[in-house]
């Protein structure tokens, strides 16, 4: 039924399986799935390696320790799962420029990497403010809290406005299979 060789599964199954993975995560590890903490921990590792005095003195790194934890393993697991799925379906491909990006912003790899970097910096700051990203937001919503919806609404506002400003005339995407 769940054939890994298929490129895509019907979205109703995806929705159900996603919910099932969240429940499995709650059952096994008493927490919703999330991996954004692993990047704070990676930052902690870098500071610990090169400036241990600063690491010891910082309150932030008391909360986010320089360790490989559950979050980091989830992150590794996502990469592996996606990799296995992509290879089985024959859609693994090295690329740095998504097709839709090329339509809107051109073929410059440097431009793409520059904006991806900026995106990462802003993303990390926003994640740390609420200790959560989209996966956490899904968890909050499933737990029947208004926090998930408030975050989702603000996310949409920021995303849509930025998209309109950033892509300007290159907004309309060419339909693709």
């Amino acid at each position, binding site marked *: 039924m769940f054939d890994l060789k298929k490129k895509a*599964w019907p979205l109703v199954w995806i929705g159900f399986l*996603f919910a099932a993975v969240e429940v499995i995560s709650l059952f096994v590890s*008493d927490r919703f799935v999330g991996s954004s903490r692993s990047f704070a921990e990676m930052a902690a590792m870098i500071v610990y390696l090169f400036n241990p005095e600063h690491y010891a003195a910082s309150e932030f790194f008391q909360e986010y320790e320089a360790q490989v934890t*559950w979050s980091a393993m989830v992150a590794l697991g996502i990469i592996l799962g996606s990799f296995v799925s992509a290879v089985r379906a024959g859609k693994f491909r090295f690329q740095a420029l998504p097709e839709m*990006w090329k339509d809107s912003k051109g073929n410059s790899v440097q431009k793409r990497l520059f904006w991806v970097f*900026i995106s*990462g910096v802003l993303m990390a700051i926003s994640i740390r403010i*609420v200790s959560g990203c989209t996966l956490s937001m899904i968890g909050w919503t499933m737990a*029947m809290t208004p926090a998930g919806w408030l975050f989702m609404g603000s996310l949409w506002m920021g995303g849509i406005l930025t998209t309109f400003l950033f892509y300007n005339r290159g907004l*309309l995407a060419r339909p693709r299979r």
Partner: protein
Amino acid sequence: MTYLTSIGNRFAEILQSSFDSSVLTVMGSQSLIAGLLIGFLLGVVLSKGAMDRYETVSGMFRLQNWTFIRVGMWLFFFGMPLVFFAQKTQMIGSVPLPDFKPLALIIAGYLFGTSMALSGYCPGIGLAALGRGSIDVLVLFGGLVFGNLIFAEYIYGSDFMSLLNSINLGKLTFSKLFGLGYISSWFELPVIAGFGVMFAMMIFAMTLIDGFIKSLSKRVS
């Protein structure tokens, strides 16, 4: 040379404290094995749901791609009652709830959406994209680590954060919002039912629209 040795020592320390026997269990909130398996399952789901690429995220913000909406409707339609009843039947322990800090949520959400629009990734989607071969995600990781360093240095514990955290309504749920949740969490059930009806209506509407578009394309071709 001693500088390099000391770095090497600290690296070994990190590995030793990370791979302690207490986390090499199969279950538990710190279990490394559990994390890996759960992540693997999620990676497959994200991959098969096309939630591992720029097109899905940016397409959503351009109002041209509805994958996340479609998946989300089913995800919450199944997930909300699943989580509630799993907790009620004691299959799972208490569900971790966030603090409801509206200022922080709005500012962080807006900034997060902005960042998603620029790259078409979020951490989870980015990881799935990396598994698919999108190596620009490695630069995203660099940005994420750098951003965490900036947060640690300049934003954590600052007056700005105190301002954002100033309004904190605690572990709010919908039933508590309506006041009844403080009596019993069973009052969550009508809220879940309400959401379920809303999602069912959206799913029904999208199915009708899909059918209509299919019939249009049949007429044209």
